[in-house]
């Protein structure tokens, strides 16, 4: 429940703030959004499986964002769309984690273990 409230608060705050990003930096923000999404889903999965570790969660978020940003930067300099690698990895993990969460919730509410 709290993550949803947090998400709403963030969106409203972002809409109220009168700033915007210059177009040359919007690629970085897009990658950061993806990294945050990945972290959130990873975190939910881990806490469902009771393997949540605060250190791994926090360092994962920042290190992944940083690496993605660096890749984007290098990609821009070399004119290679290397940030696609980050998009692919984050996207794949997103679906994997989502699948795990789905299975977990189905198991929990349908009380059957054969899914």
């Amino acid at each position, binding site marked *: 429940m709290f993550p949803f409230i*947090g998400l709403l608060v*963030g*969106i409203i705050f972002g809409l109220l703030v009168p700033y*915007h990003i210059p*177009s*040359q930096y919007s690629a970085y923000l897009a990658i950061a959004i993806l990294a945050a999404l990945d972290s*959130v889903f990873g975190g*939910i999965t881990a806490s469902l499986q009771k393997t*949540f570790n605060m250190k791994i969660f926090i360092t994962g978020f920042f290190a992944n964002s940083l690496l993605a940003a660096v890749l984007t930067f290098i990609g821009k300099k070399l004119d290679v769309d290397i940030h696609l690698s980050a998009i692919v990895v984050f996207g794949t993990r997103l679906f994997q984690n989502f699948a795990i969460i789905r299975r977990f919730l189905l198991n929990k509410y349908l009380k059957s273990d054969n899914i």
Partner: protein
Amino acid sequence: MKNKGAQLAISLICVLLGFMISIQYKSVRRNTALSNTQFQRADELQALLNKEKEKNENLYKQLLQYEKDLNEYQKEAAESSGQAKALLKQLYNAQVLAGMTDVEGPGVIVTLSDSKVKNEGETKIDENYFIIHDDDILMVINELADAGAEAISINDERLIATSEIRCAGNTVSVNNNRYGTPFVIKAIGNPETLESGLNIRSGAVEILRQWGIDITVKKVDKMVINRYNGAITLKYATPVVKDGE
């Protein structure tokens, strides 16, 4: 999700996520309003311009500081001897003529703006006659100088010995800065003489009014003409030193 820490951490990241999403949404909407590359270019140029402006401002501040110092040294020197006092007087006069100081006094303010006469139908002639050109301004300036103006500025750009008044596209370049209409020319001198110099028969005012160019001459008892803002650097000219002096 029993773990309170996990919930808190995930919520915090969610706040960040929401914030980034809405900022990105706003930015993307704004940036796609114009072509992306165009916007990028404009952004970059804007950033460069801001940087240059800042630099310019800092240099100007430095210049003012140096001049303040210089003034103090001059005053100190003048207090120490009579000869220096006479030299200082000479220096002040030279500074006024060179446009190095703000000056005040009576004079005229001439405002020039483009013609509002309708140029349509069968009698349509070249539009160029109805807008202000560099030579129109030159004519006014020349007339003012002839009538004994001691300091002249165009749109607060002080005219000095090296000033140019030149056509630059649809603007006029003065001291390498560009100005568009309306042109406000200030001249310090005898207001009566200056005014009658401009209003002389088939003089500047009459010629310009023919084309409907809006020219007003206002006499004022007291006004300030700002100093020349740039730095004066001489690359080629050096004073000739005579023997025995």
